[in-house]
């Protein structure tokens, strides 16, 4: 992987990194991907026999709603920039 590819991935992941870090990461990724790629060539003897899943998706009933507004102030207190009951961000359009 080269530096440009790392910068492109960082952009997709919305993480600002320096050119220098991208360069270092490209070498580290080569080493990590080299290691994890061993599974690509692994013989998967057990794979053909699919495992019966024990765990299945469980949906909770949408019941017992809490009273409207009881968490609002607590949650808004954690917002870095707020204006009244709004979350404030810079102009987007």
């Amino acid at each position, binding site marked *: *992987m080269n530096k440009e590819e*790392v910068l492109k*991935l*960082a952009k*997709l*992941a*919305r*993480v*600002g*990194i320096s050119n220098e*870090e991208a360069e270092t*990461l490209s070498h*580290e*990724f080569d*080493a*990590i991907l080299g*290691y*994890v*790629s*061993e*599974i*690509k060539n*692994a013989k*998967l*003897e*057990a*794979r053909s*026999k*699919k*495992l019966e899943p*024990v*765990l299945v*998706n*469980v*949906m*909770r009933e949408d019941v017992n709603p809490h009273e409207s507004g009881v*968490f609002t102030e*607590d*949650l808004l*207190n*954690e*917002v*870095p*920039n707020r204006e009244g009951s709004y*979350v404030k*961000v*810079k*102009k*987007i359009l």
Partner: protein
Amino acid sequence: MIDISKLTIISAREALRKGEFTSRELTQMCLDAIKEKDREIHAFLEVFDDALDQADKAQINLPLGGIPIAIKDNILFKNHKVSAGSKILENYTATYDSTVVKKLQEAGAIIIGRTNCDEFAMGSSTENSAFGPTKNPIDTTRVPGGSSGGSAAAVASGMVLVALGSDTGGSIRQPAAFTGIVGMKPTYGRVSRSGLIAMASSLDQIGPLAKTAEDAELLYDVIKGKDPMDSTTIGEDTYKVRKNTKTIGVPRDFFSDSLDKKVLENFENSLEQFKKLGYKIKDIKLPHLKYSLAVYYILVPAEVSSNLARFDGVKYGFHAEGGENSIDDYFKTRGLGFGREVRRRIILGTYVLSSGYYDAYYGQAQSMKSAITKELRDAFNPSADGVDFILTPTTPTPAFKFGEKSDPLSMYLADIFTVPANISGCPSISIPSGFVGKLPLGILLTADMGNESVLFEASKDFETIAN
């Protein structure tokens, strides 16, 4: 003065009930021990200022009544700070209680503080904490392991009786081994993660760190159980629990060349101890097990890249100023707020999930995860003459020095023995098995799904001989 390092939950509970000391006095002793020792060790990120108030209200007839406990800094305790060892959450205050905190409080425990960890639990040494590393109390030039290194160090140094950690690839068991205590990762689904800051949701579990298997079991019994707030939690009857468990399987093919000679020697010794206790030892072959770590380092970055997308500097946590627009602020916030290992995993996860690579990495890793799970569960299958436990060393080496594993891959390899239990979902416990010089070692017992009880029984058996 009572030495916290010698107290277990059982002995403290007895003393509290006999009136030898009060819950407030016990909590004060822990606070004093923290004050005295933690300047050097740095196990705690914060000692909660309401600890003594909690102690005054503690009902000592409850299972953990009046017992001070530390929680890892990724477990939410309402109105208390929680940062996951990250700058991006440095001043974040929990807006609700995690299920485990609720259960601790219902059991009468005193939550005394939050312990240091690798940022978002990503690491094996606590060197990745944004707030500086924790030192190993046995040898302060060495790491305590990680990511729950703060919890392990707090228990091992006698600052607190027990602690909670979280384990995604060994983050409870590896630091337990490095600091000479007991650490257990429950079956996937046994303990609710509601209110645990997620790293890799298909693998994360909360579990106990304690001085004895009995204490770990007591704490586990308090925190386990089905929870409507975590849909992956399971009931008591999901898996079959076995009895008369005395057969140990040893997968020697899985022991790589990187295994320290002294660690292997200690392991052989431990096998002899089990034989003396009447356990049967069987060599077993688990050919897929060696791929566990590779699977781990595909699935974890993938899940990390998705789980950590929520940190945007808008809803909560750190917000970097000075960008030209919102998207600019977003990049800056995440670039500055996340540490190096977290950035590394987010970007790597983005790669393995990207179009064109998804099948080769993520798809293949999922298939291999099924193969590993099947292989392990077959090895435990009673109708196929399976074993009751699998035994390996917990770690390939004793605690390493700070800075010793500076390239990421060598750090990842520290978890080689602990990762298979997370990949398969099986419960797994590390118990102290001796020393190399003064450095503690651990052995790792892994059992079939839902069989924590047999892990605790064998651990208690082993402790009778080891002590």
